């Protein structure tokens, strides 16, 4: 059992309850032991840093200070929410890069009897831990019910691979970590072109029409690729795409019914865990129909996709790293 400190963030207990439930279920099989940071507070989401600097960093750093106090030799702090991951990383990074900021934050923290030395903790996203610490080999070993026939659109959103202070991700425009994980689960992964585009963030509240357009782009693109479900790694992305999908349909006179799930939910399914324990049913756009494809042996039907790979008469495509892997 590898031990990590864990920062859940507000959404895990409310809008992303399914993420939390499914994550708790898969931790055991993955050999992960998460210890929650005691009495953590909100990271400020995408709002606090917009209107202040020192208070915003102080708010974030209270969590870092609590975590480092609790660490007991554990260096890695895991966040499951992309915004939380980015904010925690940002505070750690800028407190080191701008010592004057670090000092001021520590002066403020001292009012609460706390302190934080940047660099003490290593802040990582849950997906990073699964890919790079657990490893896909272990994941593959745990798969008992491959998600065969399920077409998934891997959607990361913007905050995980960018700005990537520690250079942990494969690419900041087109990372393939989530693709590889979902392939390891046996799913059919589409080459989702908008995988790191914006979900709208808080635009759904501030300027709904802007958000609706961003949501529409993502869902319609996944739909064009005949994806059965979209898979996210972030509560905010899931919330926007799922909860606002109906309103978006209303606004554009469309009728998309694209279920949006967390990657931990699909991991749980592939590991043979009961869907009820994985928070299925909490999504507003039901995944029931898509789920019915799993477990039922559907005949291998080649889904129609846009002409991407060469036809036999065409010119060869350039080789990409990982191409051999696919043909095996």
């Amino acid at each position, binding site marked *: 059992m590898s031990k990590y400190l864990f920062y859940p963030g507000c959404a895990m207990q409310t809008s992303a309850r399914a993420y939390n439930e499914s994550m708790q279920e898969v931790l055991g099989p993955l050999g992960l032991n998460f210890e929650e940071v005691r009495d953590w507070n909100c990271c400020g989401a995408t709002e*606090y840093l*917009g209107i202040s600097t020192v*208070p915003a960093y102080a708010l974030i750093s209270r969590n870092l200070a609590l975590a480092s106090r609790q660490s007991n030799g554990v260096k890695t702090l895991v966040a499951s929410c992309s915004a939380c991951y980015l904010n925690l990383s940002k505070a750690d990074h800028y407190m080191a890069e701008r010592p004057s900021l670090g000092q001021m934050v520590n002066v403020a923290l001292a*009012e609460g009897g706390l302190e934080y030395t940047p660099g003490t903790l290593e802040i990582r996203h849950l997906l990073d831990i699964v890919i790079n610490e657990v490893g896909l080999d272990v994941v593959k070993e745990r798969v008992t019910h491959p998600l065969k026939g399920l077409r998934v659109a891997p959607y990361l959103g913007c905050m995980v691979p960018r700005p990537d202070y520690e250079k942990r991700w494969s690419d900041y425009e087109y990372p393939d970590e989530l693709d590889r994980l979902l392939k390891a689960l046996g799913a059919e992964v589409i080459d989702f072109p908008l995988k790191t585009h914006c979900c709208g963030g808080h635009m759904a509240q501030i300027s709904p029409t802007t958000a609706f357009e961003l949501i529409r782009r993502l869902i319609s693109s996944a739909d064009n690729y005949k994806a059965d479900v979209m898979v996210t790694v972030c509560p905010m992305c899931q919330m926007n795409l799922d909860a606002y999908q*109906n309103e978006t349909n209303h606004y554009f006179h469309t009728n998309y019914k694209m279920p949006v799930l967390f990657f931990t939910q699909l991991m749980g399914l592939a590991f043979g865990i009961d869907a009820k324990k994985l928070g299925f049913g909490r999504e507003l756009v039901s995944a029931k129909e898509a789920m019915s494809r799993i477990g039922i042996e559907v005949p291998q039907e080649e889904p129609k996709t846009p002409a991407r790979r060469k036809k036999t008469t065409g010119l060869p495509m350039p080789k990409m790293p990982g191409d051999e892997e696919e043909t095996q």
Partner: protein
Amino acid sequence: MYTLKSMAIQDKAYKDSTAPDFSQTFVDMVENYGRSYEFGLATRHYLKHFPLRLPSMAPMGLGMLSKKRMDITPKHIEGIDQLKAILSRAKELEVV
């Protein structure tokens, strides 16, 4: 990105955006409870800025409530006094 946003807010370089007000509402909630409070945030923000959209929002809100994805009451952290002390010191240090 946030630098631009905060500069824009400071200079009031926006006309009809509700973003600064939303940020402030959000921050107020966090400062009071230590956690975000979506129900309070959503109702307050929508009532203030988009009252006419509330009916169309209702199904979504009800859905979120019925699926236990939104709490009607806010959550508090234990160390709220500690947090308030930290933040008030931080505000003094903020160079505007």
